[in-house]
């Protein structure tokens, strides 16, 4: 039996082998398909149909049949009309979330870059600080995030300072205001004769410090990875030439890390758009559980997705003009 099999397969195998011998690289390249196979199967069998159905659903009205199953009726742009014209809150929330993003993204990126540079320096207790700084990445997601959204416990407990000073109980909204009194900051900045808008922005950042710290964990990791990949030889030669730390940062670190700034900005945009605490996301989730809400929520989230894509394209286009890529051989 074995002999027969061998005899049968041999004539076929010889010409094939010749073909493969033409290029070993191509032969190896074919193995790539095996490695990406899990993703391919999933993408084409499950993901694409889901996307397709989801787009379909946004043009439909559905109702469950008593026997089990789903009845679909084509309603055209009805769900979209509902989102823009009938629902009072949707457009407002959408604009609000885009505005929020414009404020938050620069703050998060700058803060995480600054912290990454700090945590990259050699000092005592670095491992401990790093461990603390990455706690939010691991912990503050999903259910914990939604518990924290309506958390008055921390603010009540931290309002000790204002209690003892004013003599009356004040509940403040978050920890940030406790650490630096907003009034002090405002006075400080207005005495420095800086524009009102910038003062407002800084005040907002101080106010939101917790949510900014919480959101910048992954970005910090990405920046740290980038900082590690800069060759120490460059810094050494800089020191030899007599550059100060300030110059070294702007002339070496900043250009070298600029691709990471692009990656991080894009990641931050995606992350804050898809976060559970995002206003539009919670709004869509609320709509989802209403009657007729499933299709409407789907339509809304597609509108939302389009907005995200447009913003991503603008951000990526603007930033990539300034990104410096080190040429590697």
């Amino acid at each position, binding site marked *: 039996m074995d002999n027969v099999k061998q005899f049968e397969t041999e004539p076929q195998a010889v010409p094939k082998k010749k073909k493969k011998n033409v290029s070993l690289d191509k032969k190896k390249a074919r*193995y790539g398909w095996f490695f990406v196979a899990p993703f391919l199967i999933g993408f084409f069998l499950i993901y694409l149909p889901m996307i397709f159905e989801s787009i379909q659903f946004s043009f439909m009205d559905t109702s469950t049949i008593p026997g*089990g199953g789903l009845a679909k009726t084509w309603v055209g742009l009805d769900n979209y009309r509902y989102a823009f014209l009938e629902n009072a809150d949707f457009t407002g929330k959408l604009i609000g979330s885009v505005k929020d993003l414009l404020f938050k993204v620069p703050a998060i990126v700058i803060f995480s870059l600054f912290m990454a540079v700090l945590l990259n320096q050699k000092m005592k207790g670095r491992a401990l600080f790093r461990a603390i700084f990455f706690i939010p990445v691991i912990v503050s997601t999903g259910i914990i995030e939604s518990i924290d959204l309506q958390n008055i416990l921390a603010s009540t407990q931290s309002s000790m300072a204002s209690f003892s000073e004013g003599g009356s109980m004040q509940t403040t909204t978050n920890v940030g205001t406790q650490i630096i009194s907003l009034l002090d900051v405002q006075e400080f900045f207005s005495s420095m004769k800086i524009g009102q808008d910038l003062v407002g922005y800084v005040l907002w950042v101080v106010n939101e410090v917790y949510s900014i710290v919480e959101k910048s964990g992954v970005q910090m990791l990405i920046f740290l990875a980038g900082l590690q990949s800069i060759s120490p030889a460059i810094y050494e030669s800089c020191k030899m030439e007599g550059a100060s730390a300030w110059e070294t940062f702007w002339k070496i670190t900043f250009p070298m890390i600029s691709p990471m700034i692009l990656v991080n900005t894009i990641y931050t945009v995606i992350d804050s758009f898809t976060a559970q605490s995002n206003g539009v996301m919670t709004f869509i989730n609320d709509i989802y559980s209403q009657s007729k809400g499933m299709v409407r929520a789907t339509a809304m989230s597609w509108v939302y997705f389009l907005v995200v894509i447009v913003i991503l394209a603008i951000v990526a286009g603007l930033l990539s003009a300034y990104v410096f890529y080190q040429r590697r051989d």
Partner: protein
Amino acid sequence: MDKTKDTVKRDPSLLVFDEKTPFWVKLRSKYLTTYFLGKVAWKVFRFVLLVGISFVILFPYISKISGSFMSREDFVDVHVRLIARHPTLDTYKAIINDNHYWESLFNTATLSVLCGVVQMFICSIVGYGFAKFNFKFKKILFLCVIFTMVIPHQSIQMAMFMKFRYFDIWGIYGAIAKLFGSTAGTPAIASLLNTYWPLAILSFCGLAFKNGLFIFMMRQYYKGVPDELEEAAYVDGAGVFKTFLRIILPMSIPMMVTVFMFAFSWQWTDQFYSSLFFKDVTKIRLLTNIVSIPKSLDTEYASKTLYETAIRNTCGLMILFPLIIVYLFAQRTLIEGVERSGITG
């Protein structure tokens, strides 16, 4: 002699030390320079800043912990801030007994370990494929990975629910069933709700939560691995798969731990998929379901909202507790892994 003293006064760096130099001159010339003082000032500033931000991060957890030991009298007492006057373990006991804590913990642990391990291996395999092989359509397929990263799962949640409620591939089974005269509105192989299958399938295909990011991270890591390493293995007679299993995988353990930690902990605290796929609490209870006010605790008291918030926070704390332990063990490898990843554009 006087001349040298003058020059030294003008420029302390010209000072020459010998055995006769008094101690305090040595001290002053070493520590009273702008270089040294600037360094100290920077160190102090850095330390204060880091401690301050660490406090901002840790304070919510401190307040959660302190709140969890308080009895309801403490929430009315204006003198009580962080340390309870009537410490009690009632909140913990009530949550464990009333909210089925151990059962949920077991289920969530199983699910998270399953998802974490599967995603870790699948993302490494797919990432390796994208990093080291030049097959056709590679760029387009990698764009598909980015595509899955950008679309939030919330926007396809209805389609996802339908997919696993009436599980079928491309409607093939449905078409066959209709041919044989099935009367069901939407014929399907099975309903996969309230089982681990939906998340397992998504993990096996690298489509679960943020798997696009994991694939991207693994690809960047493998791109940094020199080709010579694999070529040496090929020369020694190992095939592509053997090289991957014996050389590449053991090498990338720090990176894989990172991916595992992310996948594991994001699944652990996940709310979206739990509420989407596990609607029936009586079948599978997950840790997200324990966040509620236990019946045995009487919250009808003066500071009801505060007390209930504290209870909910205690629930959160109990969800986090096992996660924090895992994090403490893995954090060093985690940070190392990300540092080595070189997510370099």
